[in-house]
């Protein structure tokens, strides 16, 4: 166990900032470690969302989480988009900027889905080069999230965890380690999630994600619409034993309940964190 290599702080427990919770957050000022904002929600608005974001950013540490960087796409990098991301980070004082190991579209189109990559030498080299360009432009390390996926390409010639670990090392980028995504992909593809976790370079992990999912029987969908399930909590415990304590965020993006319920859910992570601290002591 160690700190991450950039000494990004352990912000404790946070939740994703969502519209239905704005009023509660500003009136009640809940005791919470940080908020994560969905980057694209604030890039092209000068209205109420940005006005409220400015107020919340004055009260809490912020991190930014995007869905449109499309780092694995074979389309050109969108520097207009990156310029807006950089400006929003400056405005909110975001401690780090994250996005996903995925691609979202090609030929100028955007499917607005986090589409899977084949885990090949070609896709690794391609993604590493692009992450370096983005990091140079943003003038800060990029923090990349491991994906949840529903298919595997026959072309893949290495397991996802090897690809992710090599990406982080070769691009010198951070990792946002989504424990639920590992569980989802492990179920869908039949691998051992513990093997995945054990292969992750802990010093590159800057943040954790936790979320609920929906089991369809034949496969699991990463729906972010419910409480975190017990097997995911177990994996979270294993992760912090392997990696250490990091800023830990609960994502709840659909069927969003009142803020108190989301807050209570992420507070469960504190039990696992305290247990880890006790074990170390």
């Amino acid at each position, binding site marked *: 166990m160690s700190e991450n290599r950039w000494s990004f702080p352990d912000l404790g427990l946070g939740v994703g900032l969502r519209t239905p919770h704005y009023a509660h957050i500003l009136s009640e000022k809940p005791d919470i470690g940080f908020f994560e904002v969905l980057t694209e929600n604030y890039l092209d608005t000068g209205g109420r969302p940005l006005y409220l974001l400015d107020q919340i950013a004055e009260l809490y540490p912020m991190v930014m989480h995007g869905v449109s960087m499309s780092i694995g796409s074979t389309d050109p990098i969108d520097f207009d988009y990156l310029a807006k991301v950089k400006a929003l980070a400056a405005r909110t004082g975001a401690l780090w900027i994250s996005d996903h190991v995925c691609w979202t*579209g090609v030929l100028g189109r955007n499917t607005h889905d986090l589409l899977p990559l084949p885990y090949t030498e070609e896709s690794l080299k391609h993604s590493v080069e692009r992450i370096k360009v983005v990091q140079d432009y943003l003038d800060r390390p990029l923090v990349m999230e491991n994906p949840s996926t529903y298919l*595997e390409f026959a*072309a893949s010639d290495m397991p996802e965890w090897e690809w992710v670990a090599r990406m982080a090392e070769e691009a010198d980028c951070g990792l946002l380690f989504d424990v639920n995504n590992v569980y989802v992909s492990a179920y869908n593809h039949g691998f051992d999630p513990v093997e995945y976790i054990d292969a992750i370079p802990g010093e590159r992990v800057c943040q954790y994600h936790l979320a609920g999912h929906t089991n369809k029987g034949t496969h699991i969908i990463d729906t972010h619409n419910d409480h975190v399930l017990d097997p995911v909590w177990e994996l979270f415990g294993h992760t912090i034993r392997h990696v250490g304590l990091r800023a830990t965020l609960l994502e709840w993006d659909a069927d969003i309940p009142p803020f108190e319920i989301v807050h209570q859910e992420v507070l469960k992570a504190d039990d696992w964190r305290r247990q880890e601290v006790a074990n170390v002591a």
Partner: protein
Amino acid sequence: MSLEQPKLDRLQRWMQEVVVHPGTVEEAIASEGAEHEFPSERLGEVVTPSHSMTSAERVGVYQGMYLMRMEEALETDYPVIRYHLGDVAFSHLIEAYVQRYPSRSYTLNRLGDHLPQFFLDEPEWPQAAFLHDLARLELAMTQVFDEQESPVLSAEELEAVHPDAWENARLEPIAAFRLLSFRYAVIPHLVAFHEDRPSPSPRRRAAWVALYRRDYSVLRLELSRAEHDLLKALAGGTPLGEALAIAAQSQKSSHQRAQIFKWFRTWIAEGLFTSIEA
């Protein structure tokens, strides 16, 4: 051609063709665009089956979610059209719309920008002319919601204008301002949506509306044609004296002419202007 090591760009072109196809996943995999990249009978050499799903079923997870995601985004921007059409007709509309105008932006907020144009492209679409007007109203509302905040012209700034300068003074509207004219009476549909009443049948009747934002809320003023024409002239930079003179000519009685100054005071009070150049 070997499928053992397909290039990344080819794999991505294939998957996008399949994901955005509006038919079943089988139709998508067998579509011309997808077949151009990989023959459908060799799907198993592109996507592996899992312990519980075939290759096609696994691709279908992504393909099935695409239109749902597009529809979710557009029902946020066009809730009144969805309310008016109902779920089935709205889904049918979105399926056709995103085929013609797929997202080319990093944000879903821009996905609906072409919906008014879509109804011009498709004049045979049921109620196309009415839906064109309603789409323009809803698009303008989202634009006003997202526009940059502007300072509002204050009473003190107006009072500071020398009386001799009024004739040639020009007003600048706030960024979050849109002036619209319609061939159909669309406001009753907006009201019906908000009051959860049945959406009325489309009625052809000219209507004029100003949309603006105050305290980060989108508001509207329903206007007469004369109000619209004067406000359009002012917002377009016509000097105050000239705009008011033209408006006065269109008002026959002294009572009607007096109304012009009442309109003007209302627009100033509502914060429609950001500055005056005198």
